[in-house]
C-alpha cells in the first residue's frame, strides 16, 4: 500500500443500513489521489446520470488525502463531493475542520454516504464500530449546539436548521470551519443525516518518514518566513483583501453595480484586526492560522472571512463590521453558505429597488437582514423563495441580467469587470461562480504583488488554465490553497517591487506568454520532470515522501487537469456545455466605469481560445483525445 493511506473506504447506505469497508483500487488512487480529485471520480462512478440531487440515489462523498493527519502543515483538510441541488452540477467543497483527520484515525480514507434515512439520524464511525443512530435529540439544533451534544474527542460534521429545511445553499460545519458551497449541507439534510462523528487511534504512516519530516520542517519554515503567509494572513486574515480589491475596482458593491465601496476601510481586515480581533484560529495543524476570533457583546466568536465581509458588506452597501460579524455568526449557526447568502440578499435589494418584487430589504440598511437570514434558514414567508437561490428568484421575478451567478452558483466576492481573466474563470468553472474553481486569476491581475494588465484579454485563457490546474492539484493533494501564496518566493517579490526590469519581464512573461504557458501545460507530464527554478513546491515534495512515489511538477499539473476534466465530464453527462459557461449580462455588456471602455468582461473573445487550449470542443466538451491523454477512462475503476 502507498504511504499515507489507511487503505479503506467506508460505504454506508442509510436507506437499508448496509455498510461495507473495502480497499480502493490502486489505479484509482494513482490517478485521482485524494480529496477533490478522488471525490470527483467517485461521484462520476457512483451516481446515475440525471440523478435527483435531493433524492436517495445521490451520494455524499467525503474524501481525505495521503497528507491528511500526517503532520504536514496546512493539509488537514477534507473534501465533500456531491451533485449540487443549487446548480445541478458537481460540487466539491473543501473544509479545514477536524473531521478528515479523525476519519483517518478511525481507519478510513473516504466515506461514501448513500440512500436516505427514514428518520433523523447520525452516523458514528469508530475503528471497530460503525453505527447509524437516532438523532431526534439533535434535529432542530444549530450547528454549535449539535456539536456540543456530540461526544468530545471526535471529528464531527453537522448540518444546521438550513440543511434540515433543505435551503439550497446549506453548508456542512466541522468545528468552526465550513464546507459551504452549492448545497452540500442540503444533500446531507435530504438524507436525514444530522451529524457524523469519527474517532480512533490509528495513524497514517508516511513511506519515507525521515525525508517527509524534513520536508515538512522546511515547509513550515517557508510558510512562516514568507511575507504573505507568515505575516499578512495571520495578522489581518483573508479580509486584508477588502482594501486592495477596493483600490483595484474589484470589490463587489451594491450587487456588483460597481467595484468600489466608499466605506471599504470600515469593513477591512485592518479594522477587524484593530477593533475586534482577540486571537487567531487555525485549521488543525496549520502554522498560518488565518481564521479570526473576535469579541462581540462579550462573547468570543469566529470572525468573518473576506468572502463574507465582501458579500454581506459592500455588496449590500453595509459599512459596519459589527452587523457583518453577527450575520456571519448566525449563518454558521444555521449552516448557511455566506457567499450565496450575500448574493441572494444583494439581488433581492436591487430587484426591490427596481420594483420587480416587494421587500423590506434595502442597500445600506441593516434593518431586517437578521430576520431575512432566519427566514431563509427556516423557509418562512419570502425566506422560502430566497432559500432557492438567486437564479430561481430571477426566473420568477425577472432581473436575470443582474442575477450575479454562473451555473446557478452565486459569484464569490470579486467584481470581474476589474479583472477580466477572473471573469473568464467564473464562467468556465465547473462548480459555477466559485473563485477557486475559477482559478483565482485575479491574484495575477489585481490583488497580488505580480500583476498583468487586468483589463486585457491577452494571455488570460492560458493564465486561467495555469491557475486552475495548480489549485485543482493542490486541493487534490489535500493542502490548503492558501499554501500556493508561498510558492512565489520572497526574493522574487522583492525583485519585482524594486526592479522595473524584473517586474516588466514578469508582466511581459505572464501576459504575452500566458497563452504559451497554457499550451505548454497541455504537454504530457514527462515533459516537466523537475520543478522550474524559483518556485517552491513543498506540497508536491511532501506528497512524494508520504506516498513513497516520485511526484514531479508535470505529474502535479496533470493531476490538476485530470481532476478538472473529471468535473467537466460529470457536468457534460448532466447536460452542461458551452451554453452554461456564462456570466450575467451586467458583467459582459455594461461598463463598470463609463470612463474606462475596457471595464467589462469580453467573455466571447476569450472562451474559444480557452476551450482549444483545454483540448475541448467548441462546445466546451473534452475531446476523446484529451480524455485519453489524461487517462480518464469511461469504465468504472471502483
Amino acid at each position, binding site marked *: 500500500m502507498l504511504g499515507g493511506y489507511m487503505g479503506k473506504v467506508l460505504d454506508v447506505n442509510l436507506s437499508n443500513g448496509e455498510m461495507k469497508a473495502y480497499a480502493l483500487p490502486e489505479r484509482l488512487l494513482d490517478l485521482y489521489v485524494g480529496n477533490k480529485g478522488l471525490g470527483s471520480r467517485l461521484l462520476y462512478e457512483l451516481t446515475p446520470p440525471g440523478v435527483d440531487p435531493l433524492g436517495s440515489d445521490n451520494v455524499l462523498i467525503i474524501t481525505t488525502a495521503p497528507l491528511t493527519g500526517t503532520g504536514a502543515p496546512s493539509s488537514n483538510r477534507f473534501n465533500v463531493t456531491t451533485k449540487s441541488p443549487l446548480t445541478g452540477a458537481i460540487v466539491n467543497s473543501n473544509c479545514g475542520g477536524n473531521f478528515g483527520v479523525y476519519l483517518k484515525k478511525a481507519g478510513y480514507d473516504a466515506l461514501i454516504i448513500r440512500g436516505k434515512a427514514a428518520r433523523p439520524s447520525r452516523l458514528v464511525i469508530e475503528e471497530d464500530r460503525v453505527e447509524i443512530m437516532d438523532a431526534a435529540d439533535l434535529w432542530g439544533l444549530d450547528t454549535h449546539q449539535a456539536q456540543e451534544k456530540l461526544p468530545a474527542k471526535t471529528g464531527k460534521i453537522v448540518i444546521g436548521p438550513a440543511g434540515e429545511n433543505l435551503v439550497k445553499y446549506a453548508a456542512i460545519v466541522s468545528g468552526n470551519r465550513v464546507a459551504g458551497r452549492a448545497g452540500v449541507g442540503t444533500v446531507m439534510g435530504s438524507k436525514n443525516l444530522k451529524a457524523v462523528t469519527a474517532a480512533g487511534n490509528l495513524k497514517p504512516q508516511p513511506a519515507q518518514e525521515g525525508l517527509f519530516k524534513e520536508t515538512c520542517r522546511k515547509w513550515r519554515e517557508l510558510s512562516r518566513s514568507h511575507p504573505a503567509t507568515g505575516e499578512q494572513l495571520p495578522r489581518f486574515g483573508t479580509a486584508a483583501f477588502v482594501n*486592495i480589491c477596493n483600490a483595484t475596482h474589484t470589490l463587489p458593491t451594491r450587487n456588483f453595480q460597481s467595484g468600489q465601496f466608499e466605506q471599504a476601510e470600515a469593513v477591512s481586515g*485592518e479594522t477587524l484586526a484593530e477593533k475586534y480581533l482577540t486571537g487567531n484560529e487555525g485549521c488543525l495543524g496549520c502554522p498560518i492560522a488565518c481564521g479570526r476570533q473576535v469579541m462581540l457583546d462579550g462573547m468570543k466568536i469566529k470572525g468573518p472571512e473576506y*468572502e463574507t465581509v465582501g458579500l454581506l458588506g459592500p455588496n449590500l452597501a453595509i459599512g459596519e463590521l459589527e452587523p457583518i460579524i453577527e450575520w456571519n455568526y448566525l449563518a454558521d449557526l444555521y449552516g448557511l453558505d455566506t457567499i450565496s447568502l450575500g448574493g441572494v440578499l444583494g439581488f433581492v435589494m436591487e430587484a426591490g429597488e427596481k420594483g420587480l418584487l416587494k421587500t423590506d430589504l434595502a442597500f445600506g440598511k441593516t434593518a431586517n437582514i437578521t430576520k431575512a437570514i432566519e427566514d431563509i434558514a427556516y423557509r418562512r414567508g419570502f425566506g422560502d423563495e430566497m432559500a432557492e437561490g438567486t437564479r430561481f428568484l430571477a426566473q420568477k421575478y425577472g432581473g436575470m441580467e443582474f442575477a450575479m451567478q454562473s451555473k446557478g452558483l452565486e459569484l464569490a466576492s470579486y467584481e470581474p469587470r476589474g479583472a477580466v481573466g477572473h471573469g473568464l474563470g467564473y464562467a468556465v468553472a465547473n462548480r459555477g461562480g466559485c473563485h477557486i474553481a475559477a482559478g483565482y486569476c485575479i491574484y495575477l491581475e489585481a490583488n497580488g504583488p505580480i500583476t498583468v494588465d487586468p483589463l486585457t484579454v491577452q494571455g488570460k485563457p492560458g493564465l486561467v488554465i495555469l491557475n486552475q490546474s495548480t489549485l485543482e492539484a493542490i486541493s487534490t493533494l489535500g493542502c490548503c490553497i492558501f499554501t500556493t501564496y508561498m510558492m512565489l518566493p520572497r526574493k522574487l517579490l522583492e525583485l519585482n*517591487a524594486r526592479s522595473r526590469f524584473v517586474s516588466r519581464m514578469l*508582466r511581459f512573461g505572464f501576459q504575452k506568454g500566458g497563452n504559451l504557458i497554457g499550451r505548454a501545460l497541455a504537454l504530457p507530464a514527462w515533459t516537466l520532470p523537475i520543478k522550474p527554478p524559483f518556485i517552491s513546491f513543498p506540497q508536491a515534495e511532501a506528497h512524494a515522501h508520504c506516498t513513497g512515489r516520485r511526484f514531479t511538477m508535470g505529474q502535479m499539473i496533470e493531476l490538476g487537469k485530470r481532476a478538472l476534466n473529471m468535473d467537466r465530464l460529470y457536468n457534460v453527462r448532466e447536460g452542461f456545455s458551452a451554453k452554461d459557461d456564462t456570466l450575467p449580462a451586467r458583467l459582459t455588456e455594461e461598463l463598470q466605469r463609463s470612463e474606462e471602455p475596457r471595464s467589462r468582461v469580453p467573455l466571447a473573445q476569450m472562451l474559444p481560445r480557452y476551450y482549444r487550449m483545454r483540448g475541448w470542443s467548441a462546445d466546451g466538451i473534452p475531446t476523446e483525445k484529451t480524455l485519453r491523454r489524461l487517462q480518464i477512462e469511461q469504465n468504472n475503476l471502483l
Partner: protein
Amino acid sequence: MVTVKLYASLRLNPEEKEFTSAAATVEEALEEAARRYGPAFKERLKHATVLVNGRHTAHLNRKKIRLQPGDTISLFPPLAGG
C-alpha cells in the same frame, strides 16, 4: 497635493492610515514615506505593491510618474486570502 494611503503591515502607526504629500513623482512620495516611518517601514517597502489610482506601477519608472493633484498612492504588502 496627493494622498498616500498605507495598508496592512505597512500601517506601522494604526492612528495614521494616510498622509498628504506635495511629492511630484511616485518615487518622491515613496522616499517621503520612508523618511516618515523609519527603517522598519523601509524594510517592508522592499516588497510593497505600489498603486497609483488603483493601477500597479512596479513595471513603470516611478521617477517619471508625475502626480496630479488629487491622485492617490496606495501601498500594500504582498497579501494573501480569498
